[in-house]
């Protein structure tokens, strides 16, 4: 059982809107960092939209938070480690941290820890396509595409062309 909450066109619209909003607030010293896997793809599109809207390139990086998770001994078979790519200096920059869905906040906690191991950013702002209720840590997004209120046996899935063959946001019933 699944229900679509954003189709491909709406999803693109939200990403472009978020890019413009964040560019307005972030100023000149901006860099975009996506959380793998799907957050990295959204980050890539945000950076592309910023390039078109702001007429300039912004540095783009990716975080793989596998090695920073707080559930190492509880997840059973180890997840695939796919590598972090930050090739620019974070010192004093405004970092736009991007993920697809914000839920418990634990992924963002891990991402912040990892980010800070690379240097000392001036500001970190959090951009998410979907804000799902159910935070377990005091973490709040700065830029949100849509808010989703879903039951605890459901989960929100962001689908992207690059991995899933199509764009869209769906709510899936857990069996």
């Amino acid at each position: 059982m699944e229900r679509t909450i954003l189709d491909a066109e709406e999803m693109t619209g939200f990403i472009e809107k978020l890019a413009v909003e964040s560019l307005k607030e972030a100023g000149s010293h901006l860099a975009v960092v996506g959380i793998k896997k799907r957050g990295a793809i959204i980050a890539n599109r945000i950076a592309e939209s910023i390039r078109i809207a702001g007429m300039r390139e912004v540095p783009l990086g990716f975080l793989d938070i596998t090695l920073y998770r707080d559930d190492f001994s509880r997840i059973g078979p180890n997840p695939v480690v796919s590598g972090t790519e930050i090739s620019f200096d974070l010192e004093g920059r405004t970092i736009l941290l991007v993920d697809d869905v914000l839920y418990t906040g634990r992924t963002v906690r891990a991402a912040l820890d990892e980010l800070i191991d690379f240097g000392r950013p001036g500001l970190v702002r959090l951009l998410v396509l979907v804000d799902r209720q159910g935070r377990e840590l005091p973490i709040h997004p700065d830029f949100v595409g849509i808010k989703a209120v879903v039951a605890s046996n459901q989960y929100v899935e962001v689908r992207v062309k690059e991995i899933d063959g199509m764009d869209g946001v769906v709510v899936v019933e857990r069996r």
Partner: protein
Amino acid sequence: MKWTKRSLICLEHLSREEIVEVLDTVSSFKEVSHRAIKKVPALRGKTVVNLFFEPSTRTKTSFELAAKRLSADVLSFEVSTSSVSKGETIADTARNIEAMKVDCFIVRHPGSGAPYIIEQAVSSAVINAGDGCHEHPTQALLDLFTMRERFQKIEGLRVALIGDVRHSRVARSNIWGLTKMGAEVTVCGPPTLIPMGIENLGVKVEYSIEKAVKEVDVVYLLRLQKERQQEHFFPAASEYRNLYGFNAMRAAIPSGTFLLMHPGPMNRGIEIRSEVVDLPNSMILPQVTNGIAVRMAVLYLTISQV
């Protein structure tokens, strides 16, 4: 493919898929050593024990750095000051250390099979850091990773393993790993240092170094293991050098590009001449660098199964 083993004892018992999974994981760990803060919290709160019954500097240091870059605590167990010299068996030694709640043993031992005995005695992760003339799996994995990094593949590579094959656990692990990955392996050395029946492992035997290095992608030199040679396998070191030492003249033989590899420590002037150590195609230091990332990957994969 998901890794499911708590130990790494030998490459003989790994599948090609498992080897590929380790190599794929290594790339991510390599990046950690290039960060401003060369540390990730993946193994925070885990304790890794170096259990070395044989002298080693680089393997021990490499494992220690790898564990520290993953935020594990490392304890080095010195055999000379231990109860092993008072008659304790290695299984009891390992059980006693495990009773202090450790998570992983890195074992180096002069006897083939010692890491396996320890693996049977404990429920922690066990990683073989070299046992007798048996295997040295992390060395072969770092060699495979280095080759794959340069050639983008291992399948079809022509590799010549030259020197003291008889006493070399590095050679055995490499033979298992390379043949599983589809490389063509030739072993070369004086007949006294080539074990009988080695062809059964799927390698070719060549006694002339000139022929062995003709048209190869990798020249892999093995250290002459004087400490393991209890009889005379060749008349003199100078004769070995003249017949099997790798020098500039021999380095010029292979057509095209080839990689020069050595597991260290090198005997300069015996199996390798100084003039070739620093050639641009020498992978000797990149091998050491890759060793850290390979050991990080192996520690991470095995300890996550405990």
